[in-house]
């Protein structure tokens, strides 16, 4: 059906959006290889800003903090999000509960941030990476729930019911039947949680302690002092990492479609 595939004038918005999305990013990547530290003038090719990056203890420390937060957040969100998704799909069909479970994903980040800050300070909790993890896991969990819940509504529950009718325990059914069939969705959800946490700024800004800044917090203090090739190099690295994760996630979603 060649006619069906013809884009016609729709080409304009499609390619226009791609230019719009990639123009600023391309400039950043390009300027990250600039020899001089002028943000606006190209003076020659150099990779020195990448070595500046690697040798900056502040950025490396922030990177480590961010990784800790993202990894622990991902683990918590996968466990809680998957359980909740199964519960909602198999044991308690309620649109109200579902709305509650998914709201953290879209709840205004600033409101969430100050609500959590109010909770933590009234508990006299010392702020640090643990408070960021608690906060990130909340909204990341909702994304895992959404993806796994979506997958569960596609697969037939009769197999699980049959297993339980045959006397299998709920836990047994979970590990033998349910878990393998939703594995791709869990991986995709986990990767999404990981990237979301990696890049999150507003909630971390309010709930992090001053001695353990995450990378986005460090970037915030850096960008306010102007563009530097160091930031451009950092942006390029972050983009590469994200591209890798999105590609892996995409592969898993495709696998899921084929099952």
């Amino acid at each position, binding site marked *: 059906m060649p006619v069906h595939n013809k884009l016609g004038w729709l080409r304009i918005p499609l390619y226009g959006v791609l230019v719009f999305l990639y123009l600023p990013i391309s400039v950043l990547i390009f300027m990250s290889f600039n020899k001089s530290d002028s943000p606006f003038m190209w003076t020659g090719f150099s990779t020195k800003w990448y070595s500046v990056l690697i040798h900056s203890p502040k950025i490396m420390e922030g990177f480590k903090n961010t990784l800790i937060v993202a990894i622990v957040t991902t683990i918590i969100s996968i466990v809680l999000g998957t359980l909740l998704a199964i519960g909602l799909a198999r044991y308690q069909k309620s649109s109200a509960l579902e709305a509650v479970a998914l709201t953290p994903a879209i709840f205004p980040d600033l409101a969430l941030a100050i609500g959590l800050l109010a909770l933590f300070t009234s508990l006299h909790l010392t702020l640090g990476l643990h408070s960021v*993890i608690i906060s990130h896991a909340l909204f990341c969990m909702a994304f895992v729930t959404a993806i796994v819940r979506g997958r569960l509504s596609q697969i037939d529950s009769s197999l699980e019911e049959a297993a339980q009718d045959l006397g299998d325990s709920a836990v047994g059914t979970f590990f033998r039947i349910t878990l393998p069939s939703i594995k791709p969705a869990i991986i995709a959800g986990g990767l999404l949680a990981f990237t979301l946490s990696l890049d999150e700024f507003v909630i971390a800004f309010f709930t992090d302690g001053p001695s353990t800044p995450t990378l986005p917090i460090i970037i915030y203090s850096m960008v306010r002092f102007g563009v530097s090739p160091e930031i451009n190099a950092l942006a390029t690295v972050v983009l590469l990492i994200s591209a890798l994760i999105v590609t892996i996630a995409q592969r898993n979603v495709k696998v899921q479609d084929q099952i």
Partner: protein
Amino acid sequence: MRISRTAIAATAIAGLLLGLSACSSSDSGATALDPNADLSTQTLTVSNWAAYNPEDLPAKFEEKFGTKVTITNHATNEEIMAKLTAGGDSGIDVAFVSGQFAQALAAQGLIEDLDKTLIPNEANLYPEAAQLAYDPGNKYSMPYSWGTTGICYRSDLMKGNEPTSWNDLLMPKPQYKGKVTMLATERWLMLPAQRALGYSLNTQDEAEMGKVKDLLVKAKSNLLAYDDTTFYTRLVTGEAVMVEAWDGWCNYGIAENKNIKFVVPKEGSDLFTDTMVILKTSKNKEAAHAFINYILDKDVQSWVVDNILYKVPNVPAMEKSLPALVGAYPNMGITPAELLKNEALVDLGDASALYTRIATEVTAK
């Protein structure tokens, strides 16, 4: 595989819970300091503005005293204040804040009175440094650097129209409209208008502040942007020709373009001081005192002068560094006596709400 993953999750959650429970032990108030304490058993977390101290400071301090030092950065006074006043232990031992914020921290009982027997290097300070309005005698804060606010401008792009008054910034000539920036932080946002109208920088008079607001709203239409951090870059690129600036930061621009000049307008300006304070919640107070004392050392503070291009209230450090710098950076030569003629910013207490409201009204217009 499954077991190890469960183990990781369990460890993570356990760690989380430990973090939670370790929080609530609150400090039991002031304890006498031990001058002979073993500093190598203490660790310090210090929060300072980015690039405001020598990068090897932690390493050098650890080499000398055995104390492990972590330096974290804040971008603004407000940011560190929010962390310090949020309640609970912020994990910070020593914080760098501007004088009026140190005063606010002291009023809330959040910072420790300094034990001067542990800070013998205080003797390096100019006598003027003990007369600062936010903390006379430096009871709870130790000055790190000081300076004043003025107009930083491109003399080549403003030939014949060099600014001399705050009104030149607030009501620029037509050819400079849209090429002017002002500081965004509340107190310094108000300053040009307060000075131009002849009011105190610490005024709490609502009628005066109403006039300040009107003038600032009028000035806003001529601005390129409110900018606290990149104004000197804008001068270098020519995006702006004249900006409200702190003297030290104007020097960053001068370093890149000799046509950039700094002037304190004829109506006068402020005296700001960036200080060091020790938090009450610190469990490493001996090391914190040793740290402040170390900072006041001649060589450490002359690093500040040489690299940050800020003036410090430290006699031997200024004597060491000033001669080489004052030619290129004339504002480095402003003397402590001249600085002290300017009005020092002090904490406003309840009236800070008035300032916040007026800042909001100006920026929302």
